[in-house]
């Protein structure tokens, strides 16, 4: 039995319900979206792709694409002015009639030393963004084929001219489909482009040297470097001494091939401000006297116009979409079997109170909201902080620690025991969220919010994947707003209930049915605990199960002990101290025994373990590859495995088409898997990828809710058995 939580979910809601919920929120995932990234052109030095912010385009719209160059360490490609040697990347477009492509929006270059010379270019991964305009008369249903021939020179110690052909077939539809992950990547690149300088520079001669006046440059900047677009202006490798002050001046060295054809120069100015790198596009008036000193007019081989970065229009939309997804995901979390009992009991508490005191109900609703918000912010802060420290974590990371999983199982058991009435928690002992008890205090309401979030973490709702993936790639403020939207969606039903007397009146009057229901709800909690203990068994093997059961035993014993030692102070003190010792001992035992990775790898059966090399090797052999990024603690993953992946029709189709099924199991921490998820713009599982049976071909990303038909169709596409199905409007 995999995941009792899953079993209950199907019992109560089923996948039809889930899909209904998807539609109800108006956020239907359209079929199987095509990955908006071309097949990669690969050499040992460069992996290049054409990335589109749209899966489908609308007539007349302008959208962003980018040529992505992923460079091997120490290799570089070139900026518009390549410096002392080299050649900039160029793209020639072959577009449908009426479509146009804008110029490359060049990122700020780096000065790459090749002593004693210098090159201007890019290392690592570089995105060269530009805009494509779809003709207004494009017909929905047509194919909008983006074809690009790109050439670039890539150098390390050796320089190699490379070229690549890229093709992206995007369907034309009445309304465009945004590829969230691709758009987020392109927007990030656009956000990092040099910004137009709010001032003009002035270039003049000073005793044979060229000096560039920079009035309006902020104070406190350092590490200035001017990259001219013209390659016949300055000696590129020469130092550029900078004098700060109220008249900031950068001193340049005249090029041996100095040539100035008009009294204006342009370029990019890079510097650091308060330690942060900045880049501005700069226009400067050149002293006309310099022109006379320049050589005769020869045709310019390079454009001298500065490219003003395109506005990141769409960036807001992306954020709003992420917020909407997060909010919807939060709402859906309420229905998770691990969460529902907690919230239902809270609601029943309201119902009881509502007959007496409505303002107290409202107050409790707000306190619950506070608990939810603060807990989400703490979790979000942890994800952001760990992420910024370079730790490869994602959402759900808290379940990668076996002791924490066991801790959650204990919490579930205790909630279950409490629901059954095995013990009562006084208002002084609030650690378990005493709001569960029908009497409910203020702190209890707040703790219920905390507890609800804690028990919700195993059940990542389907919409949360994309939103979380977006959030973790954004600046902390944006990431926190996404988590905030999630928290608000999550808290909405209970808060709404506390504020809407009409809704409360719909609840039956308190009575025996409440007791029965409360007791009944203990069982989903126990089921969740069983599932969590199973997760611990996957993570830590038999020792993990032992540790979990000992922890449960100790917790139960401690709670019982506190319950029976009521009365005098001495009795209570004795009971509390003994209970604390038992809990501490069990905690120590758990940490000692629940060691991640202790479980064997054998559970996958005929499913192979994932590795990027294995994918590449299988593709090279001409086999389509399905990769399931999953974790034992991911409820959506297990639901998908049950309703789609483990179905006989899917197994038959995979066998017939020769699909190799690889599993990337993220139950325990794995930086390679975290990296692969990040590359697809995700922060957590599930993620389903279908790699076509062609060497180096890019994977198709499947939706987070799998269906049997969808999986089989994707398998056929990957195997090249059917023509594209997504071309229809």
């Amino acid at each position, binding site marked *: 039995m995999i995941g009792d939580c899953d079993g209950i979910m199907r019992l109560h809601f089923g996948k039809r319900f889930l899909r209904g919920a998807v539609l109800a929120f108006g956020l239907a995932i359209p079929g199987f979206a095509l990955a908006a990234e071309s097949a990669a052109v690969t050499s040992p030095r460069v992996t290049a792709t054409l990335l589109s912010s749209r899966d489908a385009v609308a007539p007349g719209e302008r959208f962003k694409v980018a040529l992505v160059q992923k460079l091997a360490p120490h290799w570089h490609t070139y900026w518009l002015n390549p410096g002392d040697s080299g050649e900039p990347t160029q793209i020639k477009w072959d577009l449908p009639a009426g479509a146009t492509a804008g110029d490359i929006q060049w990122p700020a270059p780096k000065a790459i030393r090749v*002593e004693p010379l210098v090159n201007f270019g890019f290392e690592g991964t570089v995105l060269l963004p530009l805009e494509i305009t779809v003709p207004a008369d494009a017909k929905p249903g047509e194919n909008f084929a983006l074809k690009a021939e790109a050439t670039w020179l890539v150098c390390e110690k050796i320089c190699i001219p490379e070229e690549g052909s890229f093709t992206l077939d995007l369907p034309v539809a009445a309304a465009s489909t945004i590829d969230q992950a691709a758009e987020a990547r392109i927007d990030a690149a656009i956000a990092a482009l040099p910004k137009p300088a709010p001032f003009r520079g002035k270039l003049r001669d000073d005793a044979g040297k060229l000096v560039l006046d920079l009035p309006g440059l902020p104070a406190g900047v350092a590490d200035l470097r001017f990259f001219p677009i013209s390659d016949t202006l300055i000696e590129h490798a*020469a130092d550029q001494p900078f004098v700060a002050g109220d008249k900031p001046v950068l001193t340049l060295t005249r090029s041996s*091939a100095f040539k100035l054809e008009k009294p204006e120069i342009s370029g990019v100015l890079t510097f650091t401000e308060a330690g942060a790198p900045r880049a501005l596009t700069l226009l400067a008036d050149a002293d006309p006297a310099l022109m006379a000193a320049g*050589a005769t007019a020869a*045709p310019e081989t390079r454009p001298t116009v500065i490219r003003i970065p395109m506005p990141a229009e769409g960036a807001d939309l992306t954020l709003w979409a992420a917020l909407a997804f997060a909010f919807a995901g939060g709402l859906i979390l309420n229905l998770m079997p691990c969460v529902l009992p907690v919230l239902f009991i809270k609601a029943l508490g309201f119902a009881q109170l509502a007959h007496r005191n409505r303002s107290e109900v409202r107050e409790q609703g707000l306190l619950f909201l506070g608990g939810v918000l603060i807990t989400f912010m703490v979790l979000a802060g942890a994800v952001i902080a760990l992420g910024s420290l370079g730790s490869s974590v994602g959402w759900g990371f808290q379940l990668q620690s076996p002791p924490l999983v066991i801790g959650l199982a204990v919490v579930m058991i205790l909630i279950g025991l409490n629901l059954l009435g095995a013990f009562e928690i006084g208002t002084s002992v609030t650690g378990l969220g005493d709001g569960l008890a029908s009497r409910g205090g203020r702190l209890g309401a707040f703790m219920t919010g905390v507890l609800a979030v804690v028990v919700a973490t195993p059940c990542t709702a389907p919409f949360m994947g994309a939103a979380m993936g977006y959030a973790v790639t954004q600046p902390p403020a944006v990431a926190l707003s996404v988590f905030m939207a999630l928290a608000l969606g999550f808290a909405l039903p209970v808060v709404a209930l506390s504020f809407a007397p009409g809704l409360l009146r719909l609840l039956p009057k308190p009575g025996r049915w409440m007791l029965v229901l409360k007791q009944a709800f203990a069982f989903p909690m126990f089921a969740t605990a069983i599932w969590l203990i199973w997760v611990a068994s996957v993570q830590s093997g038999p020792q993990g199960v032992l540790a979990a059961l000992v922890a449960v035993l100790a917790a139960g014993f401690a709670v019982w002990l506190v319950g029976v030692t009521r009365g005098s102070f001495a009795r209570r003190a004795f009971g509390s101290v003994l209970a604390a010792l038992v809990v501490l001992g069990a905690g120590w035992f758990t940490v000692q025994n629940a060691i991640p990775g202790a479980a064997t790898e054998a559970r996958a059966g005929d499913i192979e373990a994932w590795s990027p090399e294995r994918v590449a090797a299988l593709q090279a052999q001409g086999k389509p590859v399905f990769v399931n990024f999953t974790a034992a603690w991911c409820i959506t993953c297990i639901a998908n495995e049950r309703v789609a992946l483990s179905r006989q029709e899917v197994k038959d189709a995979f066998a017939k088409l020769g699909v190799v099924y690889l599993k990337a199991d993220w139950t325990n921490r794995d930086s390679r898997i975290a990296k692969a998820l990040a590359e697809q713009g995700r922060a957590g599982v599930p993620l389903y990828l279908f790699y076509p049976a062609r060497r180096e071909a890019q994977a198709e990303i499947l939706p987070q809710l799998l269906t049997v038909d969808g999986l089989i169709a994707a398998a056929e596409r990957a195997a090249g058995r059917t023509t594209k199905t997504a071309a229809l409007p």
Partner: protein
Amino acid sequence: MQSLTRQTFIAGLALAGLAFPAAGLAQGAAKVGAPAPAFQAVDVEGKTRNLSEFAGKTVILEWTNHDCPYVRKHYNSATMQNLQKDMAKEGVVWLSVISSPQGEQGHVDAAKAKELTVQRNAAPAGILLDPNSKVARAYGAQTTPHMYIIDPKGTLAYMGAIDDKPTSSAASLEGAKSYVRQAVAELKAGKPVSEASTKAYGCVVKYAPLS
């Protein structure tokens, strides 16, 4: 792409992490209109050659690296060889200079340099081996190819690119303007060189560390 990527070649980098002032090169380099920097280098025949021995003749210096795609563009199409032969007819002394230091790509010994000349049917008057990058440093050579023209009086008359198409694509040769032909023709006619200094393009010249 596949066929091109096989044409790998090395384009220059002195030993990584060498810290000497980059500006020193540019500022000490040759200047059009000024006397060309004197040099002394051993040629592939083992003979020491001096700039002074060519007094009264026009001299062309061609920085080269046989595996550089930009150099190959000019040799594979026989453009460079034809230019060398035409210049020889004009009585111009053509010296190819190879500056890659030992242990770096592009470094060749005399035998290999001669073999390359035969293989490519090239026609320089001489090939200078500059493994210590002394001549390159004196002239501030940046790329392969990088062209310098010294007039009969020993004045630097031209420095820069071989033509006006800064790309490694062979298709660019058609319609390209040869700065070298233009400068030599103008010198011969007794006119000032109209485009005496252009931006050289190509692969980076690899320098030996300053000893």
